[in-house]
């Protein structure tokens, strides 16, 4: 059937039906009037005759309905009728329907979105063979409680003396500049030991990964490309295998391309080259250079391996106290490399949305139970008037279905929006993981299907409940006055339990978000030690083959900064090897000559290499002495600036200016004079403590990569193009990357806590709102049920206070029980938030009290409105309903 003919037949059916209706009316009117006329002839008055005629005829509407049934008005027609009926019902109860649909949608959408993201980030299988047996191995400085990479000598010990691993592999990062073919570009490279890919069990998309012999000097000029890099730089050309590319001027043969879901150690890695074992470092236990992965022997648990390596570390600590004292070992599942600290945040979020779902379900149940009470009467009346049970059932089912369509529709939209927004909120934290580009890649379809099914079933079942009216109760139901609804003891009991649960969970969420808010406020109140606004940053690496020494790197920096400084809108500009908030880090051991270091451990300070204007551009204050200036060149006496913390540590009672320390420069300890002391900087973000720092002048010390900080009077992002040009005008083959404002870096550094806080606040807000709705409706319901009784009480002289107490009393008691349970739960559960907290403990008393106060205020507000209505019951009106 074509659409047109279908439409025509539908229109005809509609016309036929309306004709049938009018004919039926006319026919019945004729019948009654004829009958009445006969009665008039029999001697009755006209009015009385009409009355008698109607009475003797019986139910006119019922006759009509049966006639319609006889004509077998098509199924479509009656469905349409039911649909119109349910739309009317919904319009009549629009507030109720909307509330149920929104609650369902919220519960369903939020859970689907959060679980989809959680699954993609934390649960999705990694593209490796036996990913559960893969671990990363770290050395841990027990004193500083800090994980570090492994030294080559320690790695060698693990490799030769462990009995828990199948094998170990090592890697380190290697920033390259791709110089050909095409434009030069800095690429994020990683050097993998030859067995790294095979240990992971990662298969290439094209070509192959490293052969064992490619891990030896001279045969190592091969490269594996990441999917992203292959797509962007080589336009997904499959003939790339076998081609030669230039990295830092050296020729490398492309041997393979990895699939899009591979990205070790982070999704931003562009290329991988082989890393021959660095024999020159074989005895070195000072330089922590290796990122190590290992594969557990089948059947060996992580804790077991941890224990065995721990004992190895203790043995080494005894044998090499100079270097290995205070060093332990940490094993971590390989997934932690990619998910880091976003893991607890996501689980907390998942728990929170689950709580919200429970609250939402409790609320929907609450509302539907309340309505079932009022609808019971409607059903009884309709059954008594001769409605067929099947038809009734179908109508309620359609009502439920309408609810389901609205709820799941909105829920799917919310979920779809959520899987796009959530990854953006945690963007900085998810940077390590290869992530789906589109929302459809994030969406967990089975879970979406499941939640849609659950939501639909819920609304259908609850929608149809009134149709299961027990006919034996009919007369009882019909006897109840029209205002009152039927009080079902069991329904009321369920509603009370629901209120207790809602209150408990809402308080829990409120405490959680309160803790995060306080964390955030604490962080905001802190200072980074420099000013982030109007500051543009970028980073670049200087390939050693073109910039092999300090005079080359120094003159490059000097020229670039000179050109940047004259740009309009630039106030000052400086360079540093490890840009704060960028995650970059460099450490050097320092000693003070003549001072005995009885711990056997040197002080390890953050090692900064800066240009003279760096401090001015960052607005890091000078505390004593002077900044670097033109005097610090190659060949001039070595000098350094330390931060306040290091000065206080080394010379608590002396003037640091003019003191000397030993700090390695290119592995040779160099006697260096302190010329200044500057303010402390929270290098790793607001939540971190300032490290001890030593600054060396960039024109005196070699470093192969730098970050620039440019203080501007304009919006810093607008200068990005000019900065790029300035760098390229000095060296056209020198790419720069990560052009970002320092404000953006600062935002990223607190994004995890801020996003968690915002989301938890939102969830707690919704939860409290739902809980107060629950309280409101329960009290409204009791007030309506007891209107008569309240009227009697008022008539007998009860005071407002007594009425309030009798109406609110029980609900208030329930709310208090709920809050008590919530409090106990909060004390036990907020510890899972600890890793997100800062400056507050998980059992912070102030937060608990504040959350309780908010909860009580909201509850009191929700209870007050209906309770006030109770005190205004007019006894005359209330008593008339009998």
């Amino acid at each position, binding site marked *: 059937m074509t659409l047109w003919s279908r439409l025509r037949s539908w229109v005809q059916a509609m016309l036929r039906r309306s004709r049938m209706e009018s*004919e*039926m009316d*006319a*026919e*019945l009117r*004729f*019948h009654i*009037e*004829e*009958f009445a*006329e006969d009665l008039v002839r029999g001697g009755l008055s006209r009015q009385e005759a009409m009355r008698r005629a109607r009475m*003797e*005829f*019986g*139910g*006119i509407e*019922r*006759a*009509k309905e*049966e*006639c319609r*049934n*006889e*004509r*077998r008005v098509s199924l479509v027609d009656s469905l349409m009728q039911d649909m119109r009926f349910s739309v009317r019902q919904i319009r009549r109860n629009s507030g109720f329907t909307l509330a149920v649909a929104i609650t369902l949608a919220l519960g369903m959408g939020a859970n689907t979105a959060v679980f989809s993201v959680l699954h993609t980030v934390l649960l999705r299988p990694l593209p490796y063979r036996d990913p559960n047996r893969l671990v990363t191995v770290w050395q841990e400085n027990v004193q500083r409680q800090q994980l570090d990479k492994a030294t080559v000598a320690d790695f060698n010990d693990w490799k030769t003396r462990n009995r828990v691993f199948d094998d170990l592999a090592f890697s380190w990062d290697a920033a390259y500049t791709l110089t050909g073919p095409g434009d030069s570009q800095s690429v994020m490279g990683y050097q993998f030991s030859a067995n790294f890919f095979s240990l992971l069990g990662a298969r290439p998309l094209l070509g192959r990964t490293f052969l064992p012999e490619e891990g030896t000097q001279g045969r190592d000029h091969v490269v594996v490309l990441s999917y992203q890099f292959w797509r962007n730089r080589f336009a997904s050309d499959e003939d790339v295998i076998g081609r030669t590319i230039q990295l830092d001027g050296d020729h490398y043969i492309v041997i393979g391309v990895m699939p899009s879901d591979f990205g070790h150690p982070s999704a931003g890695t562009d290329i991988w080259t082989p890393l021959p074992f660095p024999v020159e470092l074989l005895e070195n236990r000072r330089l922590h250079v290796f990122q190590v992965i290992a594969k557990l022997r089948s059947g060996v648990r992580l804790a077991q391996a941890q224990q065995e390596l721990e004992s190895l570390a203790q043995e080494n600590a005894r044998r090499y106290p100079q270097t290995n004292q205070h060093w332990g070992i940490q094993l971590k599942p390989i997934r932690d490399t990619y998910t880091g600290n976003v893991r607890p945040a996501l689980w907390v979020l998942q728990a929170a949305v689950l709580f919200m779902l429970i609250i939402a379900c409790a609320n929907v149940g609450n509302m539907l139970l309340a309505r079932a009470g009022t609808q019971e009467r409607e059903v009884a009346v309709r059954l008594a008037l001769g409605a067929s049970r099947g038809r009734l059932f179908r109508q309620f089912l359609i009502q439920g279905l309408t609810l389901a369509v609205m709820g799941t529709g909105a829920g799917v939209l919310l979920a779809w929006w959520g899987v796009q927004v959530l990854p953006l909120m945690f963007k900085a934290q998810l940077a390590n993981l290869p992530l789906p580009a589109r929302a459809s890649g994030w969406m967990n379809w089975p879970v979406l299907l499941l939640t849609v099914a659950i939501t639909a079933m819920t609304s259908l079942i609850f929608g149809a409940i009134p149709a299961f009216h027990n006919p034996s109760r009919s007369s009882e139901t019909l006897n109840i006055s029209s205002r009152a609804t039927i009080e079902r003891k069991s329904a009321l009991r369920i509603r009370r339990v629901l209120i207790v649960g809602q209150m408990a969970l809402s308080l829990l969420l409120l405490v959680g978000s309160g803790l995060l808010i306080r964390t955030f406020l604490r962080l905001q109140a802190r200072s980074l030690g420099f000013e982030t606004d109007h500051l543009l940053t970028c980073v670049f690496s200087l390939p050693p083959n073109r910039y092999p020494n300090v005079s080359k790197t120094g003159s490059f920096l000097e020229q670039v900064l000179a050109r940047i400084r004259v740009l309009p809108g630039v106030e000052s500009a400086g360079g540093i090897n490890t840009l704060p908030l960028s995650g970059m880090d460099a450490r050097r051991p320092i000693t003070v000559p003549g001072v005995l270091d009885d711990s056997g451990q040197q002080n390890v300070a953050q090692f900064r290499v800066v240009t003279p204007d760096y401090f001015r551009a960052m607005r890091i204050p000078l505390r004593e002495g002077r900044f670097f200036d033109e005097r610090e060149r190659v060949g001039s006496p070595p000098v350094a600036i330390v931060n306040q913390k290091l000065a206080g540590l080394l010379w608590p009672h002396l003037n640091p200016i003019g003191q000397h320390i030993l700090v390695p420069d290119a592995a040779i300890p160099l006697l260096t004079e302190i010329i200044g002391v500057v303010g402390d900087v929270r290098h790793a973000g607001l939540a971190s403590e300032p490290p001890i720092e030593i600054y060396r002048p960039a024109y005196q010390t070699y470093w192969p990569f730098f970050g620039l900080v440019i203080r501007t009077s304009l919006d810093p992002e607008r200068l990005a193009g000019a900065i790029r040009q300035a760098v390229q005008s000095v060296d056209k083959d020198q790419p720069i990357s990560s052009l970002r404002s320092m404000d953006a870096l600062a935002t990223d550094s607190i994004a995890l806590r801020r996003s968690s806080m915002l989301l938890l606040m939102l969830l707690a807000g919704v939860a409290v709102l739902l809980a107060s709705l629950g309280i409101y409706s329960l009290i409204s319901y009791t007030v309506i049920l007891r209107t008569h009784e309240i009227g009697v009480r008022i008539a007998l002289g009860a005071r407002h206070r007594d009425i309030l107490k009798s109406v609110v009393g029980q609900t208030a008691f329930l709310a208090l029980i709920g809050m008590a349970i919530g409090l106990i739960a909060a004390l036990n559960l907020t510890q899972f938030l600890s890793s997100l907290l800062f400056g507050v403990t998980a059992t912070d008393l102030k937060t608990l009290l504040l959350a309780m106060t908010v909860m009580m205020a909201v509850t009191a507000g929700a209870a007050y409105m209906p309770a006030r209505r109770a005190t205004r019951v007019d006894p005359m009106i209330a008593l008339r309903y009998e």
Partner: protein
Amino acid sequence: MDKPLDLLQSRLDRLMRTAVSLGSLSAYGMLLGIQQISKNRLEIQQGPVYPALYRLDHRGRITSEWDESENNRTAKYYRLTAAGMRRLQTEVEKWNPIADVIAGIPGTTPEEV
């Protein structure tokens, strides 16, 4: 799908058909007719007549048309169709023997069994 007709309903249908077989009648006229034929012994509820008529109409046993009544009102008149007539015939043939049997029962004495 046909609903199984209960005894009352089928009897009413037959009555209506018999009434209609007498000529073109309105529903009200039919009720009066049945009362006359049964000499007021059959009390038929008025409401259910209409569904019965609609049912017969739907099955093609009767047809209807609108016409002027004696009092110049428009009324709907029903008439048996050929199919309705055939059906009536077969049912009468089936009914008469049963009616005879039933009519005979009250007068039967124990000796006759």
